[in-house]
C-alpha cells in the first residue's frame, strides 16, 4: 500500500505524457500538460507526508506535535496558482493561433511559416 502514492504520480505523469505526445489539438495538449503538472503535486505531497501526523498548522494542536512537511505544501500551493495563470496564457495563445491559422492541430502548425492568408 505504501507504493500507491508513487504509482499514482507515475501513472498521472505517464498518462499526461502520452497525451502530450499523441495530441492532435492544442487545447487537449494544454489539458495534458495540466495532468502532468498534477503528477508533480501528488509526488511532492507524497514526499512530505508523515505517518500519523497532523497538518502543519498549529492552531488546534500545539507546536511540537508531529506534522507533515510544510515546505512541499508551500511549493504545491504557489505552483497551483501560478500554473492556473500559465494555463490561461497558453489558452490565450490557442485563441490567437485559431484566429490566425484557422487550426489548432500541432501537426498542421509548422513554426515560422507565414499564415496562408498572409494578412499580417
Amino acid at each position, binding site marked *: 500500500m505504501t507504493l500507491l502514492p508513487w504509482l499514482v504520480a507515475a501513472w498521472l505523469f505517464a498518462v499526461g505524457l502520452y497525451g502530450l505526445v499523441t495530441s492532435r489539438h492544442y487545447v487537449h495538449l494544454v489539458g495534458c500538460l495540466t495532468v502532468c503538472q498534477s503528477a508533480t503535486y501528488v509526488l511532492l505531497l507524497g514526499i512530505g507526508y508523515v505517518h500519523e501526523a497532523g497538518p502543519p498548522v*498549529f492552531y488546534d494542536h500545539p507546536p511540537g506535535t508531529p506534522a507533515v512537511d*510544510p515546505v512541499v505544501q508551500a511549493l504545491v500551493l504557489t505552483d497551483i496558482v501560478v500554473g492556473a495563470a500559465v494555463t490561461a496564457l497558453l489558452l490565450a495563445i490557442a485563441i490567437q493561433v485559431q484566429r490566425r491559422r484557422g487550426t489548432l492541430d500541432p501537426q498542421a502548425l509548422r513554426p515560422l511559416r507565414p499564415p496562408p492568408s498572409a494578412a499580417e
Partner: protein
Amino acid sequence: MTPRWRLLLLALALAALLPAVLRVALAMPEFGAPTAVLGQSVNALVPELRHVANMVAAVNFDLRGFDTLGEECMLLCAVTGATVLLRGARGERGDVRAGHLPGRPVIPRADATVLVCRVAATLTLLFGISVALHGMTTPGGGFQGGVIAASGLLLLYLGEGYAGWRTLVPSPVLAAMEGSGAVLFVLCAGLPLIAGHPALTNGLPLGEWKDLYSGGLMIAVNAAVALSVTGSFGLLLVEFLEETREPADAPASNEADHEDGTMRART
C-alpha cells in the same frame, strides 16, 4: 512528424532516461517517513521564531519569501501576456453587447438564478477575504483567498449577464490591484535592503501567536499576494469573457463568421 514518430522519439528519450529514473525511484524514502530535515525543522522552530500558526504561510511569505517573489513575477508575466494577447487582437473598446449564436434563442435568467448568484457571489467574496486575512493562523493565505474572491466574479457573470457584469467589474481596478500587489511585494522585499538588512527581513513587531496580527512583515506580504492574485484572476476572467462579446464592426464580425464556419466544418 506523425504521432507514430513522436511516440518512437518518446520511447527513445525514456530509454535514455530510464537508468537515472530507476536510480532516483529506488532511492525514494518510504512513504510516510520522509528524510527531509528542512520541513521538520520549520515545524519545530518557526512557531517560536515568527509567532505564526500556519507553517505553509511562513514558508511562503517569510522563509522562502524570495522564492514567492519569483512566483509572483511569473504570475504577473503570465497574466500580462494573456491580457496582451487577447486584448491586442480584440481592441480596447468596451462593448456592452453579449455575443450569441444566430438561431439560438436567448432565454432570460430566472429570478431565482439572479438571487442565488448575488447571495453566493457576496458570500464567496467575503469567504475569500476571510481566508486571505486568516492566512497566518489557519489554513489559508493570499493565494487561496485571492483565487476564491476572484471566482466570486464568475458568479456575478452568471447572475447578472454580460452587460451588468461589465458595469460591476471594472478591469482597470483589477489591473491596478494586480500591479499594486506586485509593487507592495517588491517594497516589502526591497525596503529592508535600503536599511542594510537582507531582503524581506522581518522588522515589524511579530504580534501574538494565533492572533489575526501575527508574523509581522508576513501580513504585508500576504496582503500583497492576495491583492495580486485577486487582480490577476479577475483580469483573466474579464479578458476571456470579453472574447464572448459581439464584435461591433463589420470586418471583425466577418472574420468571426469565417472562423465559426471553419470551426464548424472541422467539427
